[in-house]
């Protein structure tokens, strides 16, 4: 867990592959013969995609340096706006005020859903939105009231800087209360571990993180999956954004173009998100 946090805090410079392979995919051709650096920071949900893209670009052309830092959505918007980085990532759409203040150009390259999860042994695997709000507000505090065992409900939530928390709070809870006794975990991975180990837990993770160790909970009858997020049937979803100050130039332009290329889409889908054009 500590590693995860340091990951957010510290810049991670990608240095992959001593052997320089020739550029194979056409989308990588733009980087051929280029030199320079692309600095990226912000949202942590984006990092797996950024790293994979950086790895492939760097393998095709070792003269291109790509540095990737976390920091959270707020940091991504601010640093892109102040010109501290070439590309800022955000898990929420920047406000109109932020866009006009900094002259940001916004690129939405993926959709991500936030799914409610419980322990696989929990018989309660479907909830109405009102029930969910009451659970998180603390007014329903026993699984028995929902047809489960006579055990207290253990609430799990994310830290304040989490984009996942932000979208869950605004779209699943309609900005309702999250009780102060809720346990707080620092990452999507930690949330999955916590829920997988606690038979009476309820939490939420990015849909890409849901696997057999936790059970997804249908919200108003819709199970959170990549398909239901894609079709729009599952409402708790968000875009993943990359931002630049003004129209992106040179390497930053090509990096963003790469995310929208077929190879980029493949990376995005591979990391559990839904690529968008």
């Amino acid at each position: 867990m500590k590693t995860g946090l340091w990951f957010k805090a510290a810049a991670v410079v990608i240095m992959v592959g001593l052997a320089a392979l020739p550029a194979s995919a056409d989308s990588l051709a733009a980087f051929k013969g280029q030199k320079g650096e692309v600095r990226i920071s912000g949202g942590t949900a984006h990092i797996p995609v950024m790293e994979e893209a950086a790895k492939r670009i760097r393998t095709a052309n070792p003269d291109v340096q790509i540095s990737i830092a976390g920091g959270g959505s707020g940091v991504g918007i601010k640093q892109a706006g102040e010109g501290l980085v070439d590309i800022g990532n955000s898990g929420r759409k920047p406000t109109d005020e932020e866009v006009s203040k900094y002259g940001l150009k916004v690129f939405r390259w993926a959709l991500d859903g936030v799914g409610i999860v419980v322990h696989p042994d929990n018989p309660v695997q479907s909830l109405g939105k009102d029930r969910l709000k009451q659970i998180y507000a603390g007014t329903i505090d026993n699984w028995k009231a929902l047809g489960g065992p006579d055990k207290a409900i253990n609430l799990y939530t994310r830290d304040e800087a989490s984009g996942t928390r932000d979208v869950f709070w605004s779209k699943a809870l309609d900005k309702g209360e999250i009780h102060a006794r809720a346990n707080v975990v620092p990452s999507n991975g930690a949330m999955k571990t916590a829920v997988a180990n606690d038979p009476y837990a309820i939490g939420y993770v990015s849909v890409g993180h849901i696997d057999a160790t936790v059970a997804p909970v249908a919200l108003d009858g819709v199970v959170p999956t990549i398909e239901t997020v894609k079709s729009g049937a599952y409402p708790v979803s968000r875009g993943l954004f990359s931002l630049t100050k003004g129209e992106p130039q040179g390497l930053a332009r090509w990096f963003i173009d790469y995310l929208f290329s077929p190879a980029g889409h493949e990376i995005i889908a591979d990391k559990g998100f839904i690529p968008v054009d």
Partner: protein
Amino acid sequence: MDGERLAQKAFLLAAVLSASVTVLLLAFMVILGLPLFQGGLVFRILTAPWLPGRQLFGIWPMIVGTLAIAALALAVAFPLSLGVSSLIAVVAPGRIARLVKSAVAFMTGIPTVVYGFVGVFLLVPLVRETFARGSGLCVLTAGLVLGILVAPTMILFFSDALARVPRSDRIAAEALGATPAQVLIYVLIPGAWRGIVTGLVLAAGRAVGDTLLALMLAGNAAQVPGGVLDSARTLTAHIALVIASDFDSLEFKTLFACGILLYAFTAAATLAVRRLAGKEGPAR
């Protein structure tokens, strides 16, 4: 001669640099936390609850959480450490003592994350099932594991202090017909009290400063815990959880209050240990 002077200067530079880091650190926190000291905001932050939804960014729950977990850890570790160090110094000196002592020294080298990991997968389910209340991520779990983490610090200090009690005192007591237990209780422990308090204070510093165990085991709920089975958040875990938020936000600025509090606690503990060690004087 020249080489010697060069070496002297290099060492002086190293000493000045490392000493100034601690001072600069405090200055950095105070300067960046300055907005908090204006308009009495700092008092509201120290006493209010943490409810970001209502724009309340108080760190009082974290202060209580820190003290509760550290106190429990010390309560667990103190009798344990006193027992182990008595075993080393009195009950079984020689081979067994050496074995126990090297095991304890080895414990100090185990990375904290290993304790946390074992805690998450063994102790958390045990606490949850035993008490049938809460998630097992609570003050009790964090306190127990933290107690094991700080025990080696105490044991090493305690056993050194016990070994430093003059041999003549011990022989005199034995000559009066005192049993080993009586020697320990009436001669050794009173004679070693300064070392025992020093070990306790240092262990308290370590317990308050630890981040990872609390983050992994205490649950991190930003509430004043009502009992040992409640989830709680420490100041250090709070810093780790909030640090990624927007730099301009008030919630981020409260981190400087947490930092200054932790700094003040560590400074106080260090000063206390120095005073104690100083009084011990040449006998050391």
